[in-house]
């Protein structure tokens, strides 16, 4: 069990709050976590991950969620989302969610419970509802994706009309997402 929060400070980060990391979370030592980041029980933070609440803050990462290799979580100084606890956050990530390798979650951003965000996808200034499966190389920006939607690989979802027309998640998509999540549970 390695918990490290001594990331190199940015010049404007001297007065930042310390991260609050649940004792049961696993945070790989090759990751940067700075500022007011609240990490729940059994969360996994993989190597090469950068979670920096040095501009927008706070961040919430719910229990049993895993954040895989090379993920970046950051937030604009302006702009907040409302978390499930009715408080405001720069980035809210729910519970039992998986953020796959190299994804970028840039606040203001909300990702619900039991979501899958695929390799190298970007979520910025958007809400992704519970149970969504976002595949690879996707851009989701300036929209509210309703719960239970599938976002196909390579899609660019930047208008609410596109978001509303997305198909619902099918069993096969969940199977794939579960397989990818499994990669990091080894």
């Amino acid at each position: 069990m390695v918990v490290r929060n001594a990331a190199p400070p940015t010049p404007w980060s001297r007065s930042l709050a310390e991260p609050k990391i649940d004792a049961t979370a696993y945070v790989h030592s090759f990751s940067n976590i700075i500022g007011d980041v609240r990490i729940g029980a059994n969360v996994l933070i993989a190597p090469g991950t950068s979670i920096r609440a040095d501009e927008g803050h706070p961040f919430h990462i719910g229990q049993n969620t895993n954040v895989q290799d090379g993920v970046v979580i950051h937030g604009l100084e302006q702009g907040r989302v409302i978390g499930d606890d009715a408080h405001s956050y720069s980035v809210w990530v729910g519970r039992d969610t998986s953020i796959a390798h190299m994804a970028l979650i840039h606040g203001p951003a909300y990702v619900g419970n039991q979501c899958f965000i695929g390799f190298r996808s970007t979520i910025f200034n958007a809400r992704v509802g519970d149970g969504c499966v976002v595949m690879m190389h996707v851009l989701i920006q300036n929209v509210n994706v309703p719960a239970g939607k599938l976002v196909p690989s390579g899609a660019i979802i930047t208008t609410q009309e596109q978001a509303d027309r997305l198909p619902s998640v099918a069993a096969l998509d969940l199977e794939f997402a579960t397989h990818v999540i499994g990669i990091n549970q080894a």
Partner: protein
Amino acid sequence: MMHSPPLQLLPVSTDHYWVSGDVAIAPGAAIAPGVLLQADPDSQIVIGVGVCIGMGSILHASGGRLTIGDGAMIGAGVLIVGAIGIGDRVCIGSATTISNRSVGSGTLIPPGSLLCAESAPSPQPESAAD
């Protein structure tokens, strides 16, 4: 129209690359800073002679052996995941993602590509839905 994903050149460290687990690197391989080579407990990474791996790339072996053939060139910010083989002299453009799909020797992969063994492998931009 495929979204060309941003090339993020902001590795956690710019001084080092990271090796975790069972990773064998042949002499003469060039590995840029911020590269992450991670082999899960039951897995291995084997990197051949004269391989170049660009800044910020991630190789993650899971469920077996991930091999990179001799002389392969892997651009910056590339993600390779799974138990797969990348053949000799393969050239992989920057910001590409390859998941659970092997690549034959001598292949040239355009930058920003997505090759993956989901139900519908979609290296072609046309397959982007909607």
